[in-house]
């Protein structure tokens, strides 16, 4: 992943090997890093082991500056913290048996500010992979892994039912295997969009919008498998590779110009990780695909709502796309867009990333509040609670997470959660009578 993100860098300091000041040789004394630190009293095995893992290397670079402390969402709700990881490992804890190993959502906010480029997006999967190999996986997570392996989706649903949502889309949704010709857009629908009741709403909206735009598109249907990115970040690299092979096989069977995806995790996988497994092509998140076409969208009604937008970690911070979703929202007639305090590069994680989606019960034991609940409070504070406020999202993990959080924070009926595509679709329909 590229790092053209705002980074706060420390000044570069040049240390002299020999220095004589006013006749006194102070070589090695003027930088107190040369003197023994308390942590050198501890065995170095754990740190050596972690930094010896492919991906774990940057853990050694942490120098405890604490810049990550205020930006880590998990640190806000519990004892966990990225800086503390380094301290734990220095003290001989390799994290394999520590709950902390599973709390990081790989949201990437600490990495954004870290002067030493300590990168949990690489460190966590590396250590977790070792835990997985030792069979030390929380049960909830291993259930999801098993389902992904068996059926290609985390719910363990039948691959055949991946297209069940089509029936109520109201428009034709072609399946590429039945078309026998090349298409412009292969639409990768993704798991939650295909199977979760609220995800399906977004799938249907997307089908209608693309049809209205006259896009030449098709879906993989039962051949589609989970993109595997969250499994990868949760440490199951073998499973990720298995799923990727299955998807790549399907991609290679058909001719299409570009891949349009609903799920930022899939976007991340296809764009940044499938190339090393042998598939390369143009990948667009649906907001990126639609934003340039915004002038061609025919809106027929006004959506009179106060809307705020939640940047998904794997579309925003970790892939740098902040504008396309906002451009779409601003184009919808009637919408008043307001930003939450944590926005864009500093967006606040929903808690579902990096396997968090399948660790809900486990994580709940170690935090005072779910990240989704904090985010919902922030949304309520931004758009009010008179019922016209909407928390808009662009990731299929979110509707279930945030709607659940709306209820658990006592905001039922006060804040709606809508995918951007649902709002577009609504505005394209004739006004409700």
């Amino acid at each position, binding site marked *: 992943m590229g790092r053209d993100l705002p980074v706060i860098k420390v000044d570069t300091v040049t240390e002299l090997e020999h220095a004589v000041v006013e006749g006194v040789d102070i070589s090695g004394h003027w930088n107190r890093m040369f003197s023994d630190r308390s942590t050198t009293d501890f065995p170095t095995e754990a740190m050596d082991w972690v930094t010896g893992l492919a991906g774990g290397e940057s853990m050694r670079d942490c120098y405890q500056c604490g810049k990550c402390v205020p930006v880590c969402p998990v640190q806000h709700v519990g004892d966990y913290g990225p800086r503390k990881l380094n301290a734990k490992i220095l003290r001989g804890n390799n994290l394999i048996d520590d709950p902390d190993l599973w709390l990081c959502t790989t949201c990437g906010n600490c990495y954004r500010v870290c002067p030493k480029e300590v990168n949990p997006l690489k460190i966590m999967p590396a250590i977790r992979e070792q835990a*997985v*190999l030792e*069979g030390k*996986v929380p*049960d909830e997570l*291993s259930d999801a*892994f*098993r389902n992904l*392996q*068996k*059926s290609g989706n985390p719910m*363990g*649903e*039948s691959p*055949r039912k991946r297209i069940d949502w089509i029936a109520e889309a109201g428009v034709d949704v072609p399946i590429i295997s039945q078309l026998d010709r090349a298409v412009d857009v292969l639409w990768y629908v993704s798991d939650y969009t295909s199977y979760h009741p609220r995800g399906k709403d977004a799938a249907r909206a997307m089908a209608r919008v693309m049809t209205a735009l006259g896009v030449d598109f098709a879906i993989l249907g039962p051949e589609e498998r989970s993109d595997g990115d969250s499994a990868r970040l949760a440490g*199951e*690299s*073998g*499973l990720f*590779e*298995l799923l990727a092979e299955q998807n790549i096989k399907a991609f290679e069977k058909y001719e299409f110009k570009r891949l349009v995806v609903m799920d930022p995790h899939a976007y991340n996988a296809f764009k940044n990780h499938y190339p090393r497994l042998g598939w390369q092509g143009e990948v667009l998140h649906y907001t990126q695909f639609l934003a340039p076409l915004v002038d061609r969208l025919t809106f027929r009604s006004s959506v009179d709502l106060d809307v705020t937008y939640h940047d998904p970690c794997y579309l925003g911070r970790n892939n740098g796309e902040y504008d396309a979703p906002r451009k779409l929202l601003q184009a919808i007639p009637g919408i008043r867009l307001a930003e939450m305090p944590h926005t864009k590069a500093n967006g606040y994680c929903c808690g579902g990333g990096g396997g968090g989606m399948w660790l809900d019960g486990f994580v709940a034991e170690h935090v005072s509040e779910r990240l989704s609940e904090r985010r919902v409070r922030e949304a309520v504070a931004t758009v009010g609670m008179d019922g016209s406020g909407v928390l808009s999202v662009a990731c299929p993990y979110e509707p279930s997470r945030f709607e659940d959080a709306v209820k658990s924070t006592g905001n039922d009926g006060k804040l709606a959660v809508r995918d951007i595509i649902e709002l577009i679709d609504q505005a394209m329909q004739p006004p409700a009578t």
Partner: protein
Amino acid sequence: MDYVVLLKQVPDLAEDLEIDSAGTGLDREWMSFVASEWDEYALEEALHLRDATGGTVTCLALGVQAGDVDELLATCLARGADRVVRVGSFEQSPDSHSAAGAFAAALDGIPHDLILTGVQAIDDLDGQVGPLLATRRDLPHVSVVTHIAVAADGKTATAHQEYAGGVVGEFELDLPAVLGVQTSREAPRYAPVSRVRQLMKTATIEKADGGGGGSGSGLTIEAMAVPESGATAEMITGNPVAIADRIAAILAERGIGAGAPR
């Protein structure tokens, strides 16, 4: 201690089952297969027991062409089994009597002190493999087992058999013996995909003859059907007392609650 685990694959219920055109079997077109849930518990127990007493775990799985038996056996190795054997060769899942016959024949060549298998499987129309096998090989057995311990001298095992309402019977068995496992002390361990895939390439999967099969189940399937079930609940209407009365009656039909017939 030589532990032997008997496994088979069953249709994955995530796929809706459909009846074939003859009306007496399942339509296999979309069927996918998974290890029988209870057999996985049996394996998990065997691994724990071996780790406690020392010895080996050998997994036997029926060589059915429809499923992916080699992957199942590689998964057993990934979880920690010492040796895996594919038993017999069947086009489709055999009935339980034939399965027991094949396992019984294969056991001739495999050392076994304690044989563990799932207490049941979702497709064992003609009975459970554990007691069928035990009787064929004249071994003592207990099914619905929720706890197993092997004595220090390796001559006997203790097994807990579960009854309704949480009541448990404790038995002692002379070894060798067969146990039908209902649950394992821990959830079946996760087998990382990378390890399974590695083992698929490198591991040795032995083959054992399933004998001449048996006389079959002795059952004739006249018809199979998907039971009628309304897509939505049957709604109970009326005031709260009327609703309560109806619910009590529904429960009583099933022998639950004080209103149950005596």
